[in-house]
């Protein structure tokens, strides 16, 4: 391709990657409102605060070391760990621009797109530990997890590490982002314990979230952002590839809703909105590993199964007394593993060998992420303490940690006229 046309393509590719970055960014609002909707009124400021800080921490640490841990270049040995130094430095001239990724995007685009991804992974944990974790240790946890653990496991595949060499496939991160975040969430929940009053002698006592509209806004925004999450993972604006990814992603999400709809009707004889919302997310997580490998039919099947898994998984975790107010473990860990395996079952790469490879990859990443998080949480528990006092849990973390209310009420403003 001659130069002028190549530059035009480069420009178009880079526009798409930047649009994707913006879309992945807004997933943080999606997570914020989803999690805010699924917690009680008295813990809403806390969850919003955590989410606002996580995106800040995620980006800054990705600048400090995350990016260079995840994409260390040829310097790393053995494919398990590598580090290209602190901070960022754009290669000069065309090397950081048109030549950086074969006219796909620039060095800066690469950093910021990947940085937004990194931050989403930490956010997954925040919902699962909501309503009982102390703010400061959580922020320490989030910082270290996103600065160290996420980039290391990410490097194994996307940075050209051992999983990549092995033939493991994870298009946009069913394992590297979602299952990794979900495994960390599971570890954190296990160390932290359930919310007071959730598992009683007389059975499970649900603690309903305070706002279904906020939760629904969250899920729609996450789907919205997922067009960038998956669409941007093509790493160019290649029309055929990106548009296929749009189709598979959308159909899987739609099928996830339908799967969760029917299964939760079967199980609970009710139309549980929170399940359908989680079903959509399950479908999205499920298709993420193979969004570029599937035809529409397979993507619908993958989504349908992911959506159907959700109600079972939520009930299972509850039976195991793993208290996860937003369903992060079911959505991200369980459906993340399902999606990773699905690459070996459906689509262009299907095959027994691939299933095994996928399984190894998923387990390895989850194991590392779980172990890192478990150890870190444990250390924090022993030092700073990670759980708020019983009294604070009753009062709510908004007053306890922030001296604020989410919905302050003036005297008599419930009905504002006189």
């Amino acid at each position, binding site marked *: 391709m001659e130069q002028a046309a190549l530059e035009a393509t480069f420009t178009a590719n880079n526009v798409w990657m930047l649009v994707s970055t913006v879309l992945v960014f807004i997933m943080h609002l999606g997570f914020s409102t989803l999690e805010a909707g699924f917690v009680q009124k008295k813990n809403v400021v806390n969850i919003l605060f955590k989410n606002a800080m996580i995106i800040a921490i995620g980006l800054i640490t990705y600048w400090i070391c995350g990016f260079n841990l995840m994409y260390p270049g040829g310097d790393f040995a053995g494919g398990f760990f590598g580090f290209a130094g602190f901070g960022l430095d754009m290669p000069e001239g065309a090397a950081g621009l048109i030549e950086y990724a074969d006219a796909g995007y620039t060095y800066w685009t690469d950093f910021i797109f990947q940085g937004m991804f990194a931050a989403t992974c930490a956010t997954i944990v925040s919902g699962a530990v909501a309503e009982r974790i102390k703010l400061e240790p959580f922020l320490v946890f989030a910082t270290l997890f996103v600065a160290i653990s996420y980039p290391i496991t990410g490097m194994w595949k996307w940075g050209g590490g051992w999983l990549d060499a092995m033939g493991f496939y994870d298009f946009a991160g069913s394992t590297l982002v979602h299952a990794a975040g979900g495994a960390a969430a599971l570890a954190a929940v296990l160390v932290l314990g359930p919310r007071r009053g959730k598992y009683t002698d007389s059975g*499970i006592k*649900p603690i*309903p979230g305070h706002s279904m509209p906020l939760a629904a806004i969250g899920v729609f925004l996450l789907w919205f952002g997922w067009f960038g999450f998956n669409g941007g993972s093509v790493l160019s604006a290649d029309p055929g590839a990106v548009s296929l990814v749009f189709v598979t992603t959308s159909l899987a999400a739609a099928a996830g809703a339908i799967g969760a709809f029917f299964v939760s009707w079967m199980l609970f004889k009710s139309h549980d909105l*929170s*399940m359908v919302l989680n079903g959509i997310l399950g479908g999205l997580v499920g298709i993420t590993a193979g969004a570029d490998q599937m035809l529409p039919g397979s993507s619908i099947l993958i989504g349908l199964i992911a959506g159907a898994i959700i*109600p079972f998984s939520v009930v299972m975790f*509850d039976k195991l007394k793993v208290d996860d107010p937003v369903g992060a473990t079911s959505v991200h860990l369980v459906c993340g593993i399902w999606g990773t395996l699905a690459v070996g079952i459906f689509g262009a790469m299907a095959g027994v060998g691939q299933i095994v490879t996928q399984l190894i990859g998923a387990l390895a990443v989850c194991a590392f992420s779980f172990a890192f998080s478990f150890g870190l949480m444990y250390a924090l528990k022993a030092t700073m303490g990670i759980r708020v006092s019983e009294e604070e849990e009753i009062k709510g973390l908004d007053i306890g940690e922030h001296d604020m209310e989410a919905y302050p009420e003036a005297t008599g403003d419930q009905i504002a006229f006189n």
Partner: protein
Amino acid sequence: MKKIEAIVRLSRFDKVRDALAEIGVKFFTLQDVKGFGLQKGTKMVYRGSVYDSDYIARLQLDILCSDEKADEVVDVIMKAGRTGEVGDGKITVLDAVHCVRIRTGETGPEAV
């Protein structure tokens, strides 16, 4: 002077209000209350758990009226508020020793 506190179903509120109007009770005070107890509330489902709501929602009407009128008011509420199903509510009558209309300073039966 009597103060009548009636706890009624939300779905009967319209009927009760209209019935009261007919006997000349044209003003009362209303608040949302929760009936809390050991018996069943409403079936609820949330994230896979089927459970009963802790409480049932009810409306409390506070009505001030003269001693003579009290029986009629109780009667009317009872008729308009009844469905016959468990949960229809209660009416309590208290003695008000004194009652003042802030605007005018009128007291007793003239104040209501």
